[in-house]
Structure formats: C-alpha cells, structure tokens
C-alpha cells in the first residue's frame, strides 16, 4: 500500500471499523451481555453467567461492561443506532427505556413463554402500547429517608409520620449538635430525593398526576402538592439543617456521615445500602429507613424505583440463544443466584414466587414493611416518559439558596419541555 493509501485508509478504518466488524462466527450459543459497571450489578451478572453456563453446557455468555449515568445512556443509544449492540443488554426501565425507540430497536417479548414468570406490575415500565420488550433485572429500590438509629435512640426520637414531626425531630437533633439532614452536592444526582421520593404523597393526593403531567396539564410550579418537595429543601436550607460542608460532600462521604451518626437523616434510596455495607460494615445495622413523611400521618408510604430491564436488540444475530438466556433469568434458579450475591437484594423482585433472603440488613427490613402494607407507588419516571435532565442542578440551586423553591419549580417545568418535545409527545 502506498503512503497515501495508508493515510486515507487509517481514518476510514477508524470511522467504519466499529460497524463493519462482523460478530464472531462461532456456534450461535455464544452471546454477549452488556451491563453497567456498578459493583453490585457486575457481581450479580458474573454469578448469573457462571450458573447459566454450568446449567447449560455449550452456552457461552460474555459480559461486557458500560459506564452508568448519561455516558451510559449515550453509549446504549449509539450502539443501538449503529447496530453494534450486544446480543442482550440491561438498561433502565421507564422514561429512559422509552427514549430508546423500543418498537424500532428492540425485540418484542410479549408472547414469549418466560414472560409468564414476570409479575404483570413490571410490564408497563418496559412496554410501548401493549408490546412488552424486557424482563426485570434485580430488585426494586425504594426512596425515602435513611436515618441513624443510634441518634434516634440517644435523643429518644420517634419515627416521624408527618413532615411537621420530621422537622420537630430535626430541631432536637440540631440542638444536640448533630447535623439533622445530610446533603451531598458534589454528586448532584443525590440532591433529587426530597422531590422524587415525595411522589408517593403526590399521587396519593392527585391520582391522575402522572397522566396530566404527561399531557402538559399539570406543572410542578402550579400544583401545590407537587411543589412541596422543592419547598422541603428550601425549608431545611433556611433553618441551616444541612451538614456544613454539604456543597462539596460526596455520596460516599455522606454515607459515612450517616452510618457513623455525624448526621441523622439522609434522603436517599435503598440502593445505598450495599455501599454502606462495603464502607462501614460495622455500622450497617445503625442505619434504618422510613418513608418520606407528608402532611398527613394517614398517608404514609414509599416511592419505588422499579428494577432495570434486560432487553434484546432487534438487530441481534443470535436471537434464539439470547431469548434462552433472558428467559432463564426469570427462573427461580436465577433468583437464588442473585440472592447469593451479598448486598444485591434491596427490595422485591418482579418475578413470580421470588423471595428475598431472610437475613436482610435492618434498613431493607424496614422497607419491606411498606410493601407488606401495600403503601407503595412507582416513582414518576416509571409512570411518565418525562424527566427533565436538569432537575438535580436546579435542586442544588435551591439547596444552596441561589434560587427559591417556586422559581426552581418553574425552571424545572421549562426544562421538561425539551424532553417532551424530543419525545414528540402530544400537547407540548
């Protein structure tokens, strides 16, 4: 090849290499599976693959990892758009799933026999119309308030069932020289829990909120109940209830503060529990959970983050082997394997007959009580395709006192318009 030829071919190969590279031509029992690189998910995926390969000799599954967060979103979309997606992939359900153009990119699973193993409550978050595209991966997470039990015991506090009781507790905690509420704005996503985990209370007051919100009829700034989550942050900021260094605290530091009792409350979801177990194993049992309280004690429940889904891209060349593997993941055996992964189960599976282990951390046991009472609601992002990208930054502004709750809610309503337009929803 001449030098000029090389100069031309090299960049072209870089551009087209990704799409031209043919999948390996080995037996079609060899498939790939894309999972995000969160430690708990990685561990569970490896355990599942090992068990599957053992039970099905000749079937090989190769794990491929991807970043989480928005980088992961873009990677998944790019892979689907260029036809280079792995044979099986795990990704969020709900609003993020809707953004994948499922009817174009994913293999329909509605009539697969293994869908009978999946609880019908999971169907809506992985469906377009009546067509179902995924099976659940892992357990649900639950948003609310993680609290330090030792602080509560020392100050003789009671679990609050109304917001007023919660704030009264905060006052006593502050007087005792402990930070009442931990915030961790170095990682902006953590700022959202007061708003997102309040959705149980919103839908209790307005059962139609999600539908009206999607149809551009309800707004955070307009609806007094929806606005409360924003005001909760503002109120705590005004009373100086956050830890002093909250503007630069990381998620990991916040979990340490909670487990060690330097802070009493951390609005968070149960996905934090495996990480507390890893960071502060000796203090894991000092952490408990209660639902984010609303105005009335009679309305008290938790907001649920439905598990991610596992999907098959329409472009896969190994559809049969992929379906076999995905189907196996809904089996009782697969649930056993996931239960064997320490710290993985943090709430219910959406699989029929699946039980979570008996020896659970105390905080997860607290969570399960709300499921037993049926006091749960899915988070808004699972019942509406709309979630604006800037909520976390807008809430940081409220928490830092840069803006007010009312202005922030209006700013978020404007932010959401972009997402709705992008999805081509009616009425926007």
């Amino acid at each position, binding site marked *: 090849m001449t030098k000029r030829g090389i100069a*031309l071919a090299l960049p072209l190969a870089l551009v087209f290499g990704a799409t031209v590279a043919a999948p390996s031509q080995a037996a079609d029992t060899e498939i790939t599976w894309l999972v995000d690189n969160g430690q708990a998910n990685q561990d569970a995926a490896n355990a599942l693959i090992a068990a599957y390969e053992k039970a099905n000799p000749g079937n090989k599954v190769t794990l491929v990892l991807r970043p989480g967060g*928005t980088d992961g979103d873009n990677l998944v979309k790019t892979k689907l758009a260029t036809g280079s997606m792995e044979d099986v992939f795990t990704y969020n359900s709900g609003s993020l799933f809707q953004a994948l153009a499922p009817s174009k990119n994913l293999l329909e699973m509605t009539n697969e026999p293994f869908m009978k193993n999946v609880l019908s409550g999971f169907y809506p978050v992985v469906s377009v119309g009546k067509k179902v595209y995924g099976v659940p991966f892992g357990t649900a997470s639950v948003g609310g308030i993680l609290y330090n039990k030792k602080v509560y015991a020392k100050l003789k506090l009671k679990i609050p069932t109304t917001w007023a009781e919660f704030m009264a507790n905060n006052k006593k905690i502050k007087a005792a020289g402990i930070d009442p509420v931990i915030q961790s*704005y170095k990682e902006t996503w953590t700022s959202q829990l007061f708003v997102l985990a309040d959705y149980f209370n919103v839908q209790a007051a307005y059962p139609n909120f999600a539908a009206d919100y999607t149809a551009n009829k309800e707004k955070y700034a307009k609806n007094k109940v929806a606005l409360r989550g924003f005001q909760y942050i503002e109120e705590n900021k005004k009373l100086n209830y956050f830890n002093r260094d909250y*503007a*630069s605290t990381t998620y990991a530091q916040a979990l340490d503060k909670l487990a060690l009792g330097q802070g009493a409350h951390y609005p968070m979801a149960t996905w934090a529990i495996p990480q507390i177990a890893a960071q502060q194993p000796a203090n894991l049992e000092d952490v408990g959970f209660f639902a984010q309280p609303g105005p009335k004690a009679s309305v008290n429940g938790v907001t649920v983050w439905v598990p991610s889904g596992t999907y098959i891209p329409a472009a896969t060349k190994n559809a049969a082997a992929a379906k076999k593997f995905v189907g196996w993941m809904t089996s009782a055996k697969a649930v056993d394997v996931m239960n064997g992964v320490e710290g993985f189960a943090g709430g219910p599976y959406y699989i029929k007959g699946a039980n979570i282990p008996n020896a659970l951390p105390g905080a997860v046991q607290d969570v399960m009580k709300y499921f037993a009472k049926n006091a749960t609601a899915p988070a808004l992002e699972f019942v509406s395709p709309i979630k604006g990208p*800037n909520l976390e930054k807008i809430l940081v502004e409220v928490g830092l006192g*840069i803006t007010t709750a009312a202005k922030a809610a209006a700013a978020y309503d404007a932010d959401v318009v972009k997402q709705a337009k*992008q999805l081509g929803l009616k009425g926007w």
Partner: protein
Amino acid sequence: MSKAKQSKIKNPYSYALVAPIGIIFAIFFVIPTIVSFFFSMTRWTLFDWEFVGFENFVQYFKEASLAIGFKNTLIYGVVTSGLKVIFGLALALLLTGRLRAKGFLRSVVYFPVLVSTIGVGFTFSILMDPNYGAINKAIVAFGKTIGWETYGPGWLVDPNLLPLFSVAFVDVWKGVGIATVLYMAGLASIPQEYYEALAVDGGGAWDKFRNITLPLVRPATAAVVILSFIGGLRSFDLIWAMTNGGPGFLSDVIASINYKQYQAGFYGLATAGNVILLFFVLAIVGPVYWFFNKKEKQA
C-alpha cells in the same frame, strides 16, 4: 495584495499532491460542518430525525442558564486572556533577563502546559476542597497561628465566591507558559539598538519598558490575546473537570450547556447550540483580530 490578484497566482503544488489532505479535510471538517448545520434544524434521536426548521434555535435561546453561559463565557475569555498577557509578559521579561538557571526556570513555567487539562482540573478540585484540600488546610493552619479561628472558603462551591474565577485562575496557571514563550520570542526580536539609543538619551528601566518593549511586542500581544481569548471562549474541559458547570449553573459556559444537551440526548438541540457557539466566537474574534492586524500595520 487584493483577492483577485491572489487567485491568479498559480498553485505551486499539483492537485495530485494536495488531494489526499484535501479528501481528509473534506471528510473530517467540511462535511461534518455542513451536516451539523442540517442536524441543528432537526429533532434527532440518533434513531431517526424530523425536520423542525428553526425550532431548536428558538428553544435554545429560551434556555434558562443561557444568559449565565454567555456572560460566563465572555468573563472567562476576558479574565484568562488578560491575566495571561500580564503574567506572560512579566515572566518573559524575568526569564530573558540575567538569571541563573534560566533554562530550568523556563521549563518550570512551561511545564503545566504539557500536563493533561483533565488531570490539572481534578488535581486542583482536590486542592480546593473546602475541608480536605491542601489550600484550605494551609489557610486554617495559618489562621490558628495568629489566633484566628477560620473555616476556609469553598473555592469551587460557594455561590458568593464565583467559582468561575477559581477555574480561571487554574486556567492561567496552566496556560501562561505558552504566553511566556510567545513573549520571549517577541522580546528577542526587538533590536538592541533601540535600548542602546535610549540608554544614551538617559532613559531608565521604566522608560525602556514603556516606550520600547511594550509597543514592539505588540505582535506577540496580539497572538497571546487572540489565542487565549479563543481558548477561553471555547473552554470546556477544565471547567467540566472542576465544577461540572456548577454549583447549579453558576459556572456554565456555552460549551458546557451544549455538552449537557448532548448528554441528555437532545442531539438536534445541542448541535444548534454548537452552531450558535461557532457564530458567537466568530463575531467576537473577528473584530479582535481585525483590530490587532490594523494596529500592527500602522506600527
């Protein structure tokens, strides 16, 4: 030389010789630019697109943080290029003077230029951490020695401190080496005879600087200002590594706003933002370039 005359001069290279780079230029620069103009007018999800005319531009100008972005982009460009002129010239004067270990000191000044921007950003965001960072620990320790209980400032997180200036300071630290080198070249090209003439007339050090050095390094000043101003206007990596545009939107610049649109999957909208950024930079740099070129010819 007029444009008409210019085009009549025969190209000294054959087309066969320039064709390869021409094709690469077309594939990687011309076509993407044209394509981006197109996609800026679509709603584009990567999976399909829909032509929406100028709706993206309308939506983009409604962006709440856009006003902050434009303001910050300008402030950042002005502050960093201004400080680079001042420190670059001062360092160049120092390093071209009589000095021991001149070579070593020159490499010390230039060294930060060679380090990865992201690495510098992460390092400084750790140094500037209000609790655990070395800077605030030093301030707190110093405060104790003079009996003053203090809690160091939140360099990157305190909304009252304008975190953008902390980032601009790091940008200057990292980029001043290039300005220094440009100024050293500019200083070296000033004929010694001028200084000798001034010495004969009895001028002091300040006269030397004011009347000879400063006017005659104007070409270097022009290069430093334009380079660092363009760099400041399109700056993104350092800001992203240090603050992610935060807290909230306080240190957002246009490029970081665009990046967040891509992150959110609003590809058409983000592309429209980049088209706007292109025209914004052209609109500002054009006059600056013209101004310095004009002055240069007069001088």
